[in-house]
Structures are given as structure tokens and as C-alpha cells.
């Protein structure tokens, strides 16, 4: 991968992080789940298109590794689950764990089936 491509991936990573911060700022309760599901959909589309030979490796790295990778967050998700677990376990299991994971799996399967 060229230096330009690596820089493009890092720029996409910066953009993904900013987008996440803005969404979570606007939607403090649901923002983390929203960016995680949307970012997973982006990565799934990228994987499907690249697997079908319709997206080059550099573009796939920029959108997949850079943007989707940085738009979504595992540590922020875990922190929300940990915070929610202390106060509202039922709500946390449904809204913070089941909803984003199942939605993420669903959009991934949809993208792979529709685009492969």
C-alpha cells in the first residue's frame, strides 16, 4: 500500500471519529448504537463490493479500515454497556447489547446477500 493510500486511510479514520463524536453529541443515548450499526453496514457493503471485484483494494481500505473502522467503536460500546448495567440491566441488555449486535449482523447479511 502506498504512502498516499495510508494517508487516505488515516484521513478517513479522522473523519469517522469526528462523525461519531457529532452523532453521539446529537444523540447521547442512542448515538453509539447508531454509529456502530451504520458503520457495520458500511463495512459490510465494502466487503461485499470488494469480494465481488467491484471495489479496488485502496478504496476498500479507505472506506472499510479507515471510515467504518473509526466510525464504530468497541471501547465506547463496552463503556455504555458497563454504565447501563449498573442502573438498568434489562434496558441495557436490549438496547445496548442485543439491538446493535443483531442490527449489525442483519445489515451485514443483507449487504452480503444483496451485493455478492
Amino acid at each position, binding site marked *: 500500500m502506498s504512502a498516499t493510500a495510508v494517508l487516505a486511510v488515516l484521513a478517513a479514520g479522522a473523519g469517522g471519529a469526528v462523525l461519531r463524536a457529532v452523532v453521539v453529541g446529537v444523540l*447521547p443515548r442512542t448515538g453509539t448504537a447508531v454509529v456502530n450499526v451504520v458503520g457495520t453496514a458500511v*463495512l459490510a457493503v465494502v*466487503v461485499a463490493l470488494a469480494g465481488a471485484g467491484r471495489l479496488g483494494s485502496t478504496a476498500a481500505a479507505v472506506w472499510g479500515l479507515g471510515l467504518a473502522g*473509526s466510525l464504530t*467503536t*468497541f471501547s*465506547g460500546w463496552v463503556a455504555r454497556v458497563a454504565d447501563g448495567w449498573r442502573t438498568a440491566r434489562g434496558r441495557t441488555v436490549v438496547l445496548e447489547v442485543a439491538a446493535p449486535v443483531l442490527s449489525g449482523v442483519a445489515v451485514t447479511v443483507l449487504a452480503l446477500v444483496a451485493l455478492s
Partner: protein
Amino acid sequence: MDIARPDRAGRAPTRRDLVGVAAGGAVGTALRLAAAAPLPLALAGLGPWRLLAVNTTGSLALGALASLAARSPRLAVALPTLATGLLGGLTTFSSMIVAAGRLGHDLGLVAPDSARMTGPGLVLAAAYVGGSLVLGLLAHAAGTRLGRTTGRNVGRSGGTR
């Protein structure tokens, strides 16, 4: 931004916050790329086990950082860069979901040309996501405890504020 800046919960991030988040996000992405070396920069990036290690480490660091920042206003100012940007950009949820779906293929339990996720693949995927979450929660708790202990010790010696 609610986790990174509890004092700013529900407020839109400032322009200065966003500059810090962008810088941290670029560094976090660079660290994630570095963690993949010397593997070729394939789409999956890290592979399931390195990804698990990166996500768990990031959760530990976020726990420690958040509890340290609760005692240090100076560190709290840097939270958008370090927590939302760097650790948020380093760890990734999307790759975890995609890696979970491919685990059966990676371990040779599902035929490489099979587009359908069968029994063993489904069990592995669920175990991977569940295991990642449990490890992340344990790491976050350990980091929080570590941050509290460190913050108390530094506070006693007068170095935090």
C-alpha cells in the same frame, strides 16, 4: 461525547473538541493499522484474534482514562482526543461483527465458498461476539479500578492537580 466528557453529556462537541477527536482518530487508526503488520492490509484488517486483543486493550485503557480524568481536570480536557478520538478510533465494532461472521471460514469449519452461515459458524460467531463483550467489560472494570488506584496515589502525592 457523553462518555468522553461526562460534564458535557448531551451537548454538541465544540470545534476544539472535534479537532482533538480528528487528531486522535487518525492516530488510533494508525495504531490499528500498525497492529495488523506484517499482515497485508486486507479488508478484515487485523484478523479475529488481534482484533480481540486490540478491542480488549482499548477497553482497559478507556476505563483507566475515564476514572483518572474524574480526578484530574487537566486530563479531562484531553478526553475528546484520547478517549473519543484515539481509543474510539483504535477499537472497532464493525470489524468485530464482520470477523465474527468469517470466523467459521477462518478456522476451516465452514467451506470457503459457502455464503451461508451454518450451525458451527453461527455458534462461533455468537461466541466470538459474546466473548469479546465479556472480555471488554472485564478489561473496562480492571481499567477503572487501575485508574482509581493510580489517581488516588498520584492525588496523595499532589501530582494530579
